[in-house]
C-alpha cells in the first residue's frame, strides 16, 4: 500500500452538528494533498482528529498501514505528524530557537543546551531553504517568518506528514509564492503534505490531489490535473459559483464621509497618517488599497473613534465626528466591520443574540428603562440569522465561539448592515473566508451601495478591491498616493502605486 495516511469512516459529532459524517480520507506518500471545503464543512475537525486534538466517535486511522490510536498531540508527534495551525502557537518574547525546542529542551547537566539545538535548526533552515535566523526574537520577525518557524518546529520533531491549516491566509502575495517553493522543497525531501485551504488558485498551483468536503461528507477526491477552479468550486459549494459579481452601474450622490487633512500618530513602530484627505459618496464603494502597515489601521481607528486625531477633520454628513465618542459616531450612522473579528467584532462568550445587540442594547426596543427585552432580542437575532444565512447549531442561543469563522463574520456583517448605516466601513471583510461566504458578503456590500449607502472598504486583497470598488484610493506611508476610477485602472497600476509610485510616472 502506498497510502501513508488512511482515515476510514471517521465520524465526529458535536452538539447539534455532525462535523464528520463517516469521512474516508487517504493520502499517498510524497504528495501534496489538498483538503478543500467551506468553513464549517469539517476539514479542520478531521485534521484535529488526525493530530490528536479530538477523538473520533467512530472509525479508524491507519498510518503506514498500521492501525493507530491518536489520543493526544504528543502521540501524533511521535508518529511523525506535525501541524502548522492557522493561529500560530509561538511565545513572542522567546527566540526562534527557544520556541522550537519548547517542550523537548536538550539538557546538559540540568542546563538547557541551546547551542546543539541552534546548530540543528540552522542546518534544517538551510536544508529546506527557510532562511530563518535562529537567534531572532519572534516579536521582531514578520508573520511570514513566524510561519516558517512553525514549519521548523515540525521538522525539528522529525515530522513526515505535515498538516498546513490555511497557511496562506496571513501572507502577502510574494510570501505565498515563497511558501509554495518551500512546500515543493519539503516534498523533494520526502515529506507528505496535507493542505487545508479554500483557495482554489493555490490548490491548482501546488496540490497533486484534492479531496472536497461538504457538510461533513466527502464529495470526491480528484487529481488537480483533471479538474479546474470552477469544477472544484462547484464541488465545494454544491452549485455553480459566480466568479463574476452581479455588479450594476453605480449612481453616486452627495459626499457622506469627508476626511480632511487628517493626521494621526501611529503606535510604536508603525507609520501614522499624514495630511490624509479622502471623500466617500453615497451610492459608491471606495476601496483603499495598500500594503499592510501603511496607515490603514490608524485611519480606521481614527474614523471609528478608537484613536485620537492629531489634526484635521472627519465629517460624516454635515457633522464633524472627530471629537465625538465612539457611541455618538455609531449613532450618527457609522457601522464598522472590523479587521479582527475575535478582538473587535464579537464577544465570543456571548450568544449570537447577545452579540447582535452589542451596539444597540441600550436603545428601544431592545431594552427600556434599563431592562433588556429578551424575547424581542431573541426574535431580532433569529431574523438576522435567517436574513444573513448564519449557520449556528443552536440558533440565536449558540455561543459566538461555537460558530465557524465564516458564520462569525456573517454575524458581524449582519449586525452592521441591519443597523442601516449611512456609511459602512469594511476592513478586510472576507479575510480567511471561503468562496461561498466571500461571494455572499461581496453581494451584500454591493446591495448596500445600490441602496444608496456608502461603503468604504479597506483590504489587502487586491482582487477584492478591484472587483468591488467604484473608486480605488491607494495609501502608502500614511499618505494618499492617488484615487482612481476602478474601471480605468488595472492590477499593475495599483500595484505600482502601492509601492509609492504616482500615477503616470511609471508608465
Amino acid at each position, binding site marked *: 500500500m502506498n497510502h501513508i495516511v488512511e482515515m476510514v469512516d471517521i465520524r465526529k459529532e458535536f452538539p447539534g452538528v455532525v462535523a464528520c459524517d463517516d469521512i474516508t480520507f487517504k493520502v499517498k506518500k510524497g504528495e501534496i494533498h489538498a483538503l478543500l471545503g467551506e468553513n464549517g464543512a469539517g476539514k479542520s475537525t478531521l485534521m484535529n482528529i488526525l493530530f490528536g486534538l479530538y477523538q473520533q466517535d467512530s472509525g479508524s486511522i491507519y498510518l503506514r498501514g498500521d492501525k493507530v490510536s491518536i489520543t493526544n498531540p504528543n502521540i501524533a508527534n511521535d508518529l511523525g505528524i506535525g501541524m502548522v495551525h492557522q493561529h500560530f502557537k509561538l511565545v513572542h518574547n522567546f527566540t526562534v530557537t527557544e520556541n522550537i525546542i519548547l517542550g523537548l529542551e536538550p539538557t546538559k547537566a540540568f542546563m538547557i543546551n541551546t547551542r546543539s539545538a541552534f546548530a540543528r535548526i540552522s542546518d534544517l533552515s538551510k536544508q529546506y531553504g527557510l532562511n530563518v535566523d535562529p537567534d531572532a526574537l519572534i516579536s521582531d520577525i514578520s508573520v511570514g517568518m513566524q510561519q516558517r518557524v512553525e514549519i521548523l518546529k515540525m521538522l525539528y520533531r522529525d515530522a513526515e506528514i505535515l498538516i498546513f491549516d490555511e497557511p496562506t491566509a496571513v501572507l502577502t502575495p510574494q510570501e505565498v509564492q515563497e511558501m509554495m517553493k518551500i512546500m515543493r522543497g519539503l516534498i523533494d525531501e520526502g515529506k507528505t503534505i496535507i493542505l487545508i485551504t479554500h483557495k482554489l488558485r493555490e490548490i491548482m498551483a501546488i496540490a497533486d490531489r484534492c479531496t472536497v468536503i461538504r457538510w461533513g461528507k466527502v464529495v470526491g477526491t480528484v487529481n488537480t490535473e483533471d479538474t479546474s477552479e470552477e469544477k472544484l468550486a462547484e464541488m465545494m459549494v454544491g452549485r455553480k459559483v459566480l466568479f463574476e459579481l452581479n455588479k450594476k452601474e453605480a449612481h453616486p450622490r452627495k459626499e457622506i464621509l469627508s476626511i480632511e487633512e487628517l493626521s494621526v500618530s501611529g503606535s510604536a513602530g508603525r507609520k501614522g497618517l499624514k495630511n490624509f484627505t479622502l471623500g466617500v459618496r453615497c451610492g459608491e464603494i471606495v476601496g483603499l488599497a495598500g500594503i499592510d502597515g501603511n496607515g490603514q489601521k490608524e485611519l480606521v481607528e481614527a474614523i*471609528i473613534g478608537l484613536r485620537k486625531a492629531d489634526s484635521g477633520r472627519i465629517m460624516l454628513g454635515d457633522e464633524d465626528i472627530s471629537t465625538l465618542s465612539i457611541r455618538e459616531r455609531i449613532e450618527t450612522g457609522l457601522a464598522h466591520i472590523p479587521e479582527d473579528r475575535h478582538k473587535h467584532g464579537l464577544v465570543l462568550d456571548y450568544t449570537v443574540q447577545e452579540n447582535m445587540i452589542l451596539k444597540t442594547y441600550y436603545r428601544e426596543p431592545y431594552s427600556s428603562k434599563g431592562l433588556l427585552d429578551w424575547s424581542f432580542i431573541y426574535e431580532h437575532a433569529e431574523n438576522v440569522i435567517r436574513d444573513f444565512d448564519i449557520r449556528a447549531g443552536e440558533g440565536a442561543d449558540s455561543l459566538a465561539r461555537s460558530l465557524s469563522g465564516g458564520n462569525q463574520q456573517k454575524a458581524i456583517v449582519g449586525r452592521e448592515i441591519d443597523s442601516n448605516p449611512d456609511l459602512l466601513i469594511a476592513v478586510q471583510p472576507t479575510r480567511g473566508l471561503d468562496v461561498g461566504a466571500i461571494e455572499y458578503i461581496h453581494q451584500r456590500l454591493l446591495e448596500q451601495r445600490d441602496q444608496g449607502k456608502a461603503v468604504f472598504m479597506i483590504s489587502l486583497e487586491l482582487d477584492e478591491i478591484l472587483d468591488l470598488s467604484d473608486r480605488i484610493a491607494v495609501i502608502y506611508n500614511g499618505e494618499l498616493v492617488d484615487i482612481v476610477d476602478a474601471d480605468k485602472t488595472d492590477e499593475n497600476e495599483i500595484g505600482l502605486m502601492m509601492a509609492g509610485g504616482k500615477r503616470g510616472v511609471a508608465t
Partner: protein
Amino acid sequence: MKTKVRVKKDLYMSLFAVLLGLIAGAILMTATGNNPFDGFYFLFRGGLMNIERIGNTLATATPLIFAGLSVAFAFKTGLFNIGGAGQMLIGGLCATAIGLTFDWPKPILLSVILVAALIGGALWASLPGLLKARFNVHEVVSTIMMNWIAYWTVFYLVPQYFKGPFLETESQRIPAAASLKVPWLTSLFDGSYINLGIFLAVVFVAIIAFILERTTLGYELKAVGYNRDAAEAAGISVNRNIIFSMSIAGALAGLGGATFYVGFASNMQIGVLPAQGFDGIAVALLGANSPWGVFLAALFFGLLHTGKGFMNAMTSIPPEIADTIIATIIYFAATSVLIERNWDKINKIRLDFMIRKREAEQLEADSGGE
C-alpha cells in the same frame, strides 16, 4: 435564554469538587485513625442537629454570601477583587460607628447603618476601580493594599473613638437597637446567632442575579469582562464599567461587613482582617460565579464551619479536618478544567458502553432471528 447545558455542567462540576473534597477528608480521617462515617455524621449533625445549630449555620453563611457575591460580581467584569476583607472592615466600621453614635429607633437606625455600610464599601472599592480605569493599576495589587489601609484605619479609629470599657483592642458593644439580631428571630431559632442579615443576603442574591441577566448594566459589565476591546469598539465605556463593577462589588462586601460586625458579632476587634473576605474567593469559585451558586456554596461552607466544633467535641478528629475539606474543595473547584476533561472522558466511556451494548443486543437479536 442562557443555555441550560452550561448551568447544569457548572452545577455538576461544583458538586463533583465537593464530593472529591469530602473523599479527601474521609481519607484524612481514616489516616489519623478515625472512622470517617462518624466524623461526617458529627460534622453535619453539628451544623444541622437542631434549630439553633441551623440558625448558626445560616448566620455563619451570611457574610460569606456577601463576600462571595462581591468577588463573583467583579469577576463578571473581568476584575479580581481580593479586597473583600478591607471592604468588609470599612462597611463594618461605618455600621459600628453609626450604631455607637446615634440613638435612633431601631428601624431607622438599622436602615442608616446598612446604607452607610453599603456606601462605605462602595467608595472603598471604587478607588482601585478608578486606579485601574485611569492608570491601569492592576486591581489585585491595589485591593490588597487597600486591605491593609482598612486594617490600620480600624486599628487607629476604634481605640481612639469607640474604645470598649475593658479592652484596648475592641470597640464597645453596639446597643441592641443597632444590631441586626432581633428577638423574634433569635427566639425562633432557640437563641442562635441568626440575624436579619440572611434575609438581606437572599434579597441581594436575587438583585444581583437580576442585574446580571436582565439589565443593560449587567449586559455591559459582562461584555467588558468577556472582551474589553469588542465592548469598547461597540461604544461601551470600559472605564466607567470598571469603576461601576468595583463599586458594586465593594457595596456587597461592605454590607457583608455590616452583617458580620453588627449581626453575627456585637463589636469590632482591631488587628484582624476578616477571613470571610478571602473565603469569598473560594465561595465564588465553587459557586461558578453565579449568584445562586454563590448562595449555595456559602451555605455549605457555613455548615462545615459550624459543624467542625461539634465534630471535634464528639470524636477525636481535629477541627482542622473540616478546614482541610474546604481547602481541598477549593483546589478541586479551581482545577475544574481538569475535572471537566475527565467528565467528558467519563461521558465518552458511558457512550461507548451504550453503543457496544446496543451492538451486542442487535447481534443477539439477529442471531436469534436465524
